[in-house]
Every structure is written in C-alpha cells, then in structure tokens.
C-alpha cells in the first residue's frame, strides 16, 4: 500500500515536472500514466505488486469528479445567457463525436482485420 502509493505519487510528480520543464501540451498525470504503462509492460512484477492499490483508486473513479461538479452548479451563470446554445452545442457535438468515433473504429477494424478475440 505504502510503496504503491509512493510510486503513483512519484510518477505524477515526475510527469508534472517534465511537462513543465519541456513545456509539453499534456498534463503531468497523463504523462505519468504513459510512463507507468511502459514500466508496467516492462516489469510485470511491479504491475502485480501495484494492482490492488491501483484497482482500489480506480474502483470509484466517478466519485473524484464530484467536487468539480459541485463547482459547476455555482458557476452556471458563467454561461452568460448562452445556456440554450451551449447546451445544444454540448449535447449534439458529444452525440456526434461518440457516433463518429465508434463507427470509424468499427469500420477500420473490419477493413484492416483488426478484430478482437
């Protein structure tokens, strides 16, 4: 538990440092995720040692968005009377993006024979 948490925080810290030092357009935690994925692939023992803690944190991923979500309620006036237009923009664009991405994935997977087993 202690070691796994330390590895997770240190990875994030390294990511935050690198993304700032190199002025990369991606956030530190995402960079940390990429680095840890590579480390997990290279060292299966590390992956298994960290599995319980990582699964524990991921088990309630939705919970972590609640504080930011509560912040949205107090800031709805930031929509500046554009509520309808922006709501429609979000609803339609999200539906279109999910549809387009999923259909493209399925189509290209079929064309290239990259089916799942």
């Amino acid at each position, binding site marked *: 538990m202690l070691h796994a948490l330390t590895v997770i925080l240190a990875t*994030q810290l390294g990511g935050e440092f690198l993304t700032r030092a190199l002025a990369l357009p991606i956030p530190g935690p995402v960079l940390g995720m990429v680095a840890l994925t590579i480390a997990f692939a290279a060292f299966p023992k590390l992956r298994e040692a960290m599995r319980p803690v990582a699964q524990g944190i991921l088990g309630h991923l939705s919970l972590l968005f609640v504080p930011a979500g509560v912040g949205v309620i107090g800031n709805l006036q930031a929509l500046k009377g554009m509520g309808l*237009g922006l709501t429609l923009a979000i609803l339609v664009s999200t539906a*279109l993006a999910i549809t387009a991405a999923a259909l493209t994935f399925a189509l290209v997977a079929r064309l290239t024979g990259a089916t799942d087993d």
Partner: protein
Amino acid sequence: MTDVAQIWSYLSQGPLLWLTATLTAYGIGDTCFRAANRAPLVNPVLIAVTLLGALLWLTATPYATYFEGAQFVHFLLGPATVCLALPLADNLPRLRRALLPVLAALVVGSVTAMASALAIARAFGADAGLLAALAPKSATAPVAIGIAEGMGGQPTLTAVLVILTGITGAIIATPLLNFLRLKDWRARGFAVGVASHGIGTARAFQVHPTAGAFAGLGMALNAVLTALLAPLLLRLFLP
C-alpha cells in the same frame, strides 16, 4: 451543553464535514445507480452533485468552504489518472493490434467534437471568447483549461463546459451505442473516452473492463490531439 448552532458553525468551517458529505452524497448516488440496474440516466455523479448543491444552497455555504473538505477527493484525480496505466498495460497487446482503428477514430472523433460544437454555438451567436472556451471541452479538464486560456477563453466557463460534456457523454453513450448496434467494446469505450474524457471513462469502466481501458486510452490521446487542433479549428469558426 453547547448550542447546536455553535457546533454547526464550528464543523461547517472545517474539512471533515464536507469531506463526509461528499462521500455520503456519492454513496447515495451509487446506491440509486445500482438499484436502477446501472441505468445510464441514474448517473451517480449527477445525483451527488445535485444533493450537495442543494445542501450548500440550504446552508448558505460558499463553494470555497465546501472545497476545503472536498479537495482531498479532488486531489485524487491526478493519482487516478496515473493508475489508468494498469488497465492500459493489461490491454497493451489488444491496443497494439487495434492501432489503425484507434488512430482513425481518434482523428474523426476529436475533429467532430470540436467542429460540430463550434458550428452550433456560432449559429446561436456565441462570441470569440465563448467559442475559445467551448472548443476544447472534450479534453480532460486541466488540458482543456490550458488550451482555452491560450486562445482567450475563460477558465471557469471552460471547466463548466468540460464537466457538462463529461456528464452528457456518460449519460447518452450506452443508449446511443446500443441504438447503433455496436457490440465491439473497444470501439464503444474508445469513442466515449475521446468525446467525454474522464467522466466518460469512469462510466465505461462501470460497463465493461475492456471499454474502460480503451476509454482511458481515448481520453489520453485526445488530450494531446485537442491541444494541437483546437487553435486551428477555432480560427475556421471565428465570427
């Protein structure tokens, strides 16, 4: 005996009360979600946010006071993002096999999300600042805020639009993808991660582990692609 009002005024200023309230509200939301057979419309985040919003309003508590307690939960977003390495590493061989579908779906999904949102908002008369805040809304919050600020968008408004996009994606994905009769968990998860970042990814994990892993990948890749494409697309749609 101390007055209840005094105890309240003491507790409502500290982090303990609001941290407990956050976990309790999410617990209620999660119980409702399970009781409703994991129906997408009964979204645990939406329920918890509504309950807490009402509680803060009733008790006239400022968001800053609430966040004193809630920040401990909020902080875990970073470590949780790092932990997505686990499902990614577990699925690495399948991700490698799906390289072409992944890249094609990423570009199509990312461009569709930005271009369609900008076109609709512009039709409603949105100004340049609003469009800048809207363009990166499918990317994960820290990336989206950074991109929007770089283009002249307001950070608070961007955060609102990002969260609303995430909740929208988490709610509509399952019925929409069922309607499209797509059964490939990779395609379903990846599309949700691209369109609605971490909140969509959290939903994908609730549905299927493969969908969750591909959603995490979609979220990460779209964070990078949005940073590259948002300024270009915004220029096309500026009034």
